[in-house]
């Protein structure tokens, strides 16, 4: 089945120690998104890649970076995690093209703990 895969599902890192979360997709979608979700809140968009074009949300901290080496993979790098970065990180994909629905499909998420 076509899907969005995130690894690892749970990640523990130390305060200030860089961490990378990964996302892959078999849907051949041209847009990939990273969201941050904290308890009892809706997901918050951090950035997205539209093909190879990176688009950062205005309020995304500089501490968060992303890479998309090819259509299938996208990475979220947190350069110096703080305690406030503990959250669920969700990857999503969609296809933007004439006639497409723009429906977004989400992966299972990576729950990040910062100690």
């Amino acid at each position: 089945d076509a899907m969005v895969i995130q690894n690892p599902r749970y990640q523990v890192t130390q305060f200030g120690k860089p961490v990378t979360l990964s996302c892959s997709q078999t849907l051949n979608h041209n847009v990939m998104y990273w969201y941050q979700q904290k308890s009892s809140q809706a997901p918050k968009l951090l950035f997205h890649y539209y093909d190879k074009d990176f688009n950062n949300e205005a309020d995304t901290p500089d501490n968060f970076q992303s890479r998309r080496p090819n259509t299938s993979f996208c990475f979220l790098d947190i350069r110096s995690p703080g305690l406030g970065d503990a959250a669920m990180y969700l990857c999503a994909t969609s296809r933007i093209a004439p006639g497409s629905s723009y429906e977004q499909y989400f992966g299972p998420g990576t729950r990040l703990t910062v100690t």
Partner: protein
Amino acid sequence: GIQVEQSPPDLILQEGANSTLRCNFSDSVNNLQWFHQNPWGQLINLFYIPSGTKQNGRLSATTVATERYSLLYISSSQTTDSGVYFCAVVRGTGFQKLVFGTGTRLLVSP
């Protein structure tokens, strides 16, 4: 920007009961999705429904775009229906950010 409000914010049901969740949005939309976030945090697509009515098993959804609301119906609820239900909308064409509603937290007790 567009505002998306959901009601009720919290809902407790006995297993087997029916329920209706509502999503109101403040402007016209091109895309509306309903999601179920399970207790493990996974966000599961339920419906893509910018207008009209769809059904999938015990769940159905209706969007009345001209009146700017959508309804999610859950019939014969089960404990596995527990979690948070989000609606999310997109305005315009091309890339537009998915704007999430405030969510409805559902607990179905045995």
